[in-house]
């Protein structure tokens, strides 16, 4: 049987990679990809705990589905935003979008 900590390790690594992606990429859509990665990491974590603690309880699965749904909705709206942004500012570089500068 695959020990639980392996799954947690993989999800941790994936999360960190996603986070790095979000922080370091210039392009907005790349950031969105980073976010999707992070969400997947979370899902792995949830299901790992579901599988190794209460497999008979469907709560884990429900949570996973909800996370997927939210991720999809978030991606949809996020990309719509970036498209609108592109139409307005002809750029999708997050660097250039800093109107809220102090």
């Amino acid at each position: 049987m695959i020990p639980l900590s392996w799954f947690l390790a993989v999800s941790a690594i994936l999360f960190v990679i996603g986070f790095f992606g979000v922080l370091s990429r210039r392009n907005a859509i790349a950031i969105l990809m980073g976010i999707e990665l992070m969400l997947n990491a979370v899902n792995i974590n949830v299901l790992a705990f579901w599988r190794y603690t209460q497999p008979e309880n469907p709560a884990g699965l429900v949570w996973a589905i909800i996370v997927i749904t939210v991720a999809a909705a978030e991606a949809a709206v996020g990309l719509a935003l970036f498209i609108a942004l592109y139409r307005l500012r002809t750029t999708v570089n997050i660097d250039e979008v800093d109107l809220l500068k102090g």
Partner: protein
Amino acid sequence: MLNSYAVVGLYLLIALAFPFVTLLIVSLMRPSKPNPLKNSTYECGMETIGDTWVQFRAQYYLFALVFVIFDIEVVFLYPWAVAYGKLGLFALVEMVIFIGMLALALVYAWRKGILEWQ
């Protein structure tokens, strides 16, 4: 349960490898004499006009968007369908509400003219 997926996994690997291996094998057999004319993009024989990536209309994105919403609806629909036999009437009512909500989404998209393909 896992060994059934083992078979699927194995099949997956082979099914994935098969086309690419064949391509490799075939690429050895066929002649390869590239020349600029031949390699230019085919545009009914005429010179390519304008940039390759034509301006992309939001239309395609919106269709994909509506698809995403209904795709997720399906994901919710199937477990309900599977478990429907054992559940009572309330399951039906709840699903009616769920589908009603998304029908609302469809009506909204319809009214907003997104479903038309200019």
